[in-house]
């Protein structure tokens, strides 16, 4: 069993598992942090951005000044943003049989894999994952396509030139593989390869393994996966949460007794408690709005925003913010808010019960009804006429490189009354803000990551007790910024095996057993013999038939009747040779009694020696040696076949035959 690690990002994994003649891709996350190296795409012409000075080498050479721009000491690529794809060279991706998706954040690279690698397999995911994943992709494509950029910079990627660039461009990895965003057509084609599954549904892959999605508690429809054969079980734990938010709770019990547990998607901010962060979020929001400032929340159109809106629903009245408008701007805002209300079966129990009342499971329906929350596809159109300040705006993209958020950053960045509150943990907020410097607006970092933290992981591992744990290398040591926090790493026995990008891991896992079926007529013919109380044995002569990873013992063909010469010959070609079987022996030889028997049969001068494995009986006179061990008995005599047969028969008297 091997694990091919195609992504270095622990929360956006892409691994390929080779297990029992199947090739399974586990998630295909897209690392979008590469976009931080690019200049933002403004929706409205920004004089500030377009007038940034070009970057030139120390010696004054300005040949890159068209591609690279400088802003407050940082250098950015002035081009369409590009993404860092999973490794495509490590394994031939056309051999991948299936792709298992665990949540909508972990499928963003899907079009790159399904459309450009010769992939012909099936993708499995739950319905909310697919629907919300589609929204995320749609938003991404929309954000990028609606601001066409003529320039596509490639000169800086030249290895010799990249070396001359300042950090972080200099240290960016695999820049040659960075790709522009896919198109909507590719998205649709990729999504058409998905087959929908439900929690605990068992899906057979070629008869070899069975895969099952389990609720992981992190997002709507998010799943962990069990990949098991009859005798082996691999658990794949991706973004999971034990907190009580909107999704169905995590199914932990089904992860028990795994041989290998692949652990990815833990919280990215292990020191931030989501509850505390939500409190911070609310406090800072209220503080800003009360002072007459605006609040900007860069976010994804689905996920944490549902919880934030729910918190605000409870909070705004108490904080006296009932008159403050909340705006949610995204090309998919409407669909996201509505989708969340219809996936009742994927929600936590509390929300499910609301559906039977019937009430919308999420309170943002009421916010919309009372006009406290308004949503728009874009800041063009209706929004510009409704827009009232001070206000709170939720919009994407959290990287601050594209989407409507770019406009609000430009608009509100100059006033210290305004605040931008980062809640998505995927991007470093300092890097995200770099092209907007100098910035007067206040910045608050309240990353809300509900995924498992290390305390929860260690409890989980204690409970499910996998034989081996495999995880990204980042989880096997404390975060570099908090190297003293030994509690911020996966702590288990035996120590977890770690992987990094472009590594192939041989999993410490031996296949010992296979399940074989016996045909009923063959089973009928067996005559078991009890050799010990409770243990019966029977010998089987059969043909082992293997097809589609299923093994069946069929009755051996009857010996062919001696008919015509040619025919018989052909028949004997097809039928395997069925030799007459010698009986099998069992039991052990008690040495003392054996010696007595030998003496009774006229052997004298018998000497017994103890060896490490058993005994040696020496018949000195006959110059013969009988070596008795646990699983073998040898009679060694010189060319005296008669003697050997006599001795053999004496030995056989002590053994059972069947």
């Amino acid at each position, binding site marked *: 069993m091997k694990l091919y690690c195609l992504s270095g990002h622990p929360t956006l994994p892409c691994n390929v598992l080779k297990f029992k003649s199947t090739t399974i891709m586990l998630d295909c996350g897209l690392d979008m942090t590469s976009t931080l190296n690019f200049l933002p795409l403004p929706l409205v012409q920004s004089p500030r951005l377009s007038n940034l000075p070009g970057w030139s080498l120390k010696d004054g050479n300005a040949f890159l000044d068209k591609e690279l721009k400088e802003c407050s000491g940082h250098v950015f690529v002035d081009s369409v943003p590009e993404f860092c794809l999973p490794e495509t060279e490590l394994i031939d991706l056309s051999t991948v049989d299936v792709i298992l998706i665990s949540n909508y954040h972990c499928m963003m690279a899907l079009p790159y894999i399904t459309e450009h690698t010769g992939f012909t397999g099936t993708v499995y995911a739950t319905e909310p994952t697919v629907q919300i994943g589609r929204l995320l992709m749609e938003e991404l494509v929309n954000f990028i396509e609606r601001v066409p950029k003529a320039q596509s910079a490639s000169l800086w990627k030249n290895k010799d030139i990249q070396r001359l660039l300042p950090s972080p461009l200099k240290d960016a990895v695999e820049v040659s593989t960075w790709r522009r965003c896919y198109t909507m057509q590719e998205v649709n084609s990729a999504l058409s390869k998905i087959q929908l599954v439900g929690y605990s549904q068992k899906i057979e892959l070629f008869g070899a393994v069975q895969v099952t999605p389990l609720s992981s508690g992190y997002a709507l429809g998010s799943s962990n996966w069990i990949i098991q054969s009859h005798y082996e079980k691999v658990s794949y734990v991706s973004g999971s949460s034990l907190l009580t938010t909107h999704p169905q709770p995590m199914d932990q019990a089904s992860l028990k007794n795994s041989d290998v547990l692949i652990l990815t998607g833990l919280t990215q901010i292990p*020191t*931030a*408690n989501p509850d*505390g*962060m*939500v*409190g*911070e979020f*609310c*406090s*800072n929001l*209220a*503080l800003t709005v*009360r*002072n*007459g400032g605006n609040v900007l929340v860069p976010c994804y159109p689905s996920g944490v925003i549902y919880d934030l809106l729910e*918190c605000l629903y*409870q*909070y705004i*009245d*108490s*904080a*006296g913010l009932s008159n403050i408008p909340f705006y949610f701007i995204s090309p998919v805002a409407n669909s996201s808010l509505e989708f969340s209300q219809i996936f009742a079966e994927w929600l936590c129990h509390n929300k499910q019960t609301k559906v039977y009342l019937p009430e919308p499971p999420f309170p943002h329906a009421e916010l919309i009804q009372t006009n406290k929350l308004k949503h728009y596809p874009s800041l063009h159109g209706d929004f510009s006429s409704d827009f009232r300040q001070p206000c709170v705006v939720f919009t994407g993209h959290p990287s601050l490189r594209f989407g409507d958020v770019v406009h609000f950053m430009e608009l509100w960045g100059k006033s210290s009354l305004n605040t931008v509150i980062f809640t998505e943990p995927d991007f470093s907020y300092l890097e995200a803000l770099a092209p907007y410097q100098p910035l007067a607006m206040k910045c608050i970092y*309240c990353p809300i990551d509900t995924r498992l933290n290390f305390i929860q992981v260690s409890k989980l591992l204690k409970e499910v007790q996998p034989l081996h744990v495999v995880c990204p290398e980042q989880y096997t040591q404390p975060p570099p910024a908090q190297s*003293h*926090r*030994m*509690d911020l790493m996966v702590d288990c026995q035996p120590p977890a095996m770690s992987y990094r990008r472009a590594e192939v891991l041989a999993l410490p896992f031996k296949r010992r057993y296979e399940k074989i079926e016996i045909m009923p007529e063959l089973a009928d013919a067996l005559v078991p013999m009890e050799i010990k109380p409770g243990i019966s044995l029977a010998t089987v002569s059969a043909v082992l038939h293997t097809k589609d990873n299923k093994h069946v013992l069929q009755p051996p063909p009857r010996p062919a009747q001696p008919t015509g010469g040619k025919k018989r010959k052909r028949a004997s070609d097809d039928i395997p040779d069925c030799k007459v079987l010698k009986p099998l022996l069992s039991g052990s030889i008690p040495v003392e009694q054996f010696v007595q028997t030998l003496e009774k049969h006229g052997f004298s001068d018998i000497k017994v020696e103890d060896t490490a494995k058993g005994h040696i009986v020496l018949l000195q006179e006959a110059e013969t040696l009988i070596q008795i061990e646990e699983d073998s008995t040898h009679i060694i005599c010189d060319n005296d076949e008669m003697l050997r047969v006599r001795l053999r028969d004496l030995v056989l008297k002590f053994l059972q035959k069947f």
Partner: protein
Amino acid sequence: MGPEDPVWRPKDQLLHLKDEDAPFRFPPTGPPRHLVPGLARPRLFRSWSHPFLQKRISSLTMDPECSQLLPALCAVLADPRQPMADDTCLEKLLDWFKTITEAGSSLLLLQENPCLVELLCHMLKPQDLSSRVLSFSLRLTGVFAAQEDCFQYLQQGELLPRLFGEAGPLGGAAWTAPTVRSGWIQGLRSLARHPSALHFLADCGAVDTIFSLQGDSSLFVASAAGQLLVHILGLSMQGPADGPPSLQAGDWPACAKKIVGHIEESLRSTATPQITQALNVLTTTFGHCHDPWTRVLWVRLSPLVAGLLEKDPVPAAHSLVDLLLSVARSPGLSSSSCGLWETLAQTLSRLSPTQAGPLALGILKLQDCPQALRAQAFAVLLQPLACVLKATAQAPGASGMLLPEGGRCRRAGRWSPGRVLGVGELCQGSASPTSDTGHHLCALLLGCVRVQRAALDFLGTLSQGTGPPELVTEVFAVLLEYLRSPDSSPTVLKKAFQATFRWLLSSPKTPGCWDLDPQALLFLRELLPVLQKRLCSPCWEVRDSGLEFLTQMTGRWGGQAGFRHALLASEVPKLTEQLLRDPESYVRASAVAATGQLSSQGLCISPASPEHPGGQQSPLSELLHILSTDSEGFPRRAAMHVFTQWLRDSHADVVGDTEEFVAGVLQVASQDLDWEVRAQGLELALVFLEQTLGQPGSPCPYAVTPPVVAPACPLAQALQPLCRAGLFSFAFRALFDCDRPVAQKSCDLLLFLRAKMASASSPQEARSSPDVASVEAALQRWQAGDQAQPLGDLEPEVVLAVLKSMDLEGLRGALAESSDHVEKSPQSLLQDMLATVGILGENEADCY
């Protein structure tokens, strides 16, 4: 409910009624409360008061009415078909009998009421009696037999041995009920008061039964058995009165010998429960009895107790600690000569840290403890801290006993705040331990709310010590980190605010300057944005403690320039004003208090704020609005407190015209449904009264004298503003308030005024004026519950005349009575008990 804690105590009441000259008393069949409509009430005016002719109800002897009811009641109790549903009645009945027997002769009582002995005899018959009644009878027998003559009387009838001996319930099926076993013990406990009882106990073999009951499955029974042993031991040792007994057991009374022998045997036992029982008996003995013989007892038993320390593990460690502390606290034992200090030291070193913690704490509280032992106790208490800080030894695993008794540790002077800071940092995750143990501790303490709370409490206590300025900076940094951290729980934040206030208080001061020192001001500038954010917290507890902290700070430094400047530069005053409309009533109450404090220091935001289109209201009108409209009591109470404080401190800038202010507040307060608001209204009225008429007594010579209007003019003239402010209508209405504290307070206020009246020079006589008559008539109607008619505009002369004629003292006496004193009469109890089983037949008609 044990006899020590009765529900019903007849002796509490009516004892003071001996004073027959009192102008007014409730009639015997009067209502429980003085304002139940339609029932008799106290006479209000002296001129109409009748001589007090009430027949005295005495609970000290059995009155004829009760005697008449008693046979029926005994019959009910003896009848197994009439189960007594409510056993609190039995407790009350027992209490009553106790009171009677304490005051008079039990023998006489039994002779006069033969039904009682019949009841007790009835218990001896084999029958299906309720275990409650049996238990009651055993206890009742004990109560009677406490007097020696009555004991003899009962002995003659063989009643006692048959009730308490082998022939009684002891051998029967009833014994399985814990309440019967408990009754048996308590009965014996009551009767064991005289030497005859001791003989009886010895003869009937009760002591052995008590020994076995120490291990009873019911904890109440087991505990009572232990206490009974202590009681018997004490009783038997009272006999040999001449000097302390010798160590030789042969000299001791037989009963004591037996008990001590049993204790010794238990202490030698290998079974922990037995050792625990013995230790508990000894603990109670040394705790309650300090006679010289206890010293002899300790000298005799201490080797055995010390022997327990040799065992591994030490058995019954908790009980052992209790015993040693009990011995150490006993004044009868001069600790130094008994080797007690050595035993304590040895115990400290033998017990595990969690077991030794309570002992160490107890040792530190001892008066004359040797210094070395004290140091050892400190070392035990602070061991977890030492482990945490040094991170060298084993992890303590005893976070539950971290940091107790902060004050004492501080006095020991061994623990600098710096070390506590270390714990604080560990809990926060901001410490960087280097060792493995450090890492382990870090993981153990991280986010541990209990330890955080204790550490912050301790840190607050340490603020009074002196330390270098760097330390103060360090403390402020840690406190700020706690206040800032999004993960701090509300309770931790509260403690952090408290500790911060204490450290700010103790920050070094420039002589002659009350303002915060520059370092503290710097800290304050960092603190205020945090406070700002906390005031917007979604968690109401946090908003609440933030406001409390603000109130405290403003109260202390509100007048100082540095503080004012920093506060006014922040958003805090504005947020406080907004929190007056918080959905949580506690927060509104705290915001009211904070607003009161801020505005009295002139720190409220200026009324001309553009953000409130409806026009910014003054703090006074804001608070008046809360007082008149808030649906919850807390904010309204808080508003009344603020108003009273404003008036007391004479904040003319906030209050404006005092008379108008008081009139406005009292008018709203009089309508309030919350009695505390009305009571606080009377407090405000009193302050106003005092300010108008001058302090009642001689004021403190150092007090800042408020601008008192000295009544240079005649009293009636001085009362004019009070009348205009509606103070008297408010006070008279409050006099008939359905809540007793309000009425009492009003009564006190009017009495104060009358005292003023008496001291003032010749008030104008308006006795015969028709106004006075109409007011008196109106007040009588008010008293009758009809408060619809207003008193109208009261003239000072009329007020004075009415006050003079009122029987305020009588009213005060009536109000001082517990409201249910009539219901508590023994007769009513007996009637109730009979009524529940339908003997009285009164309620029969109601059944259909």
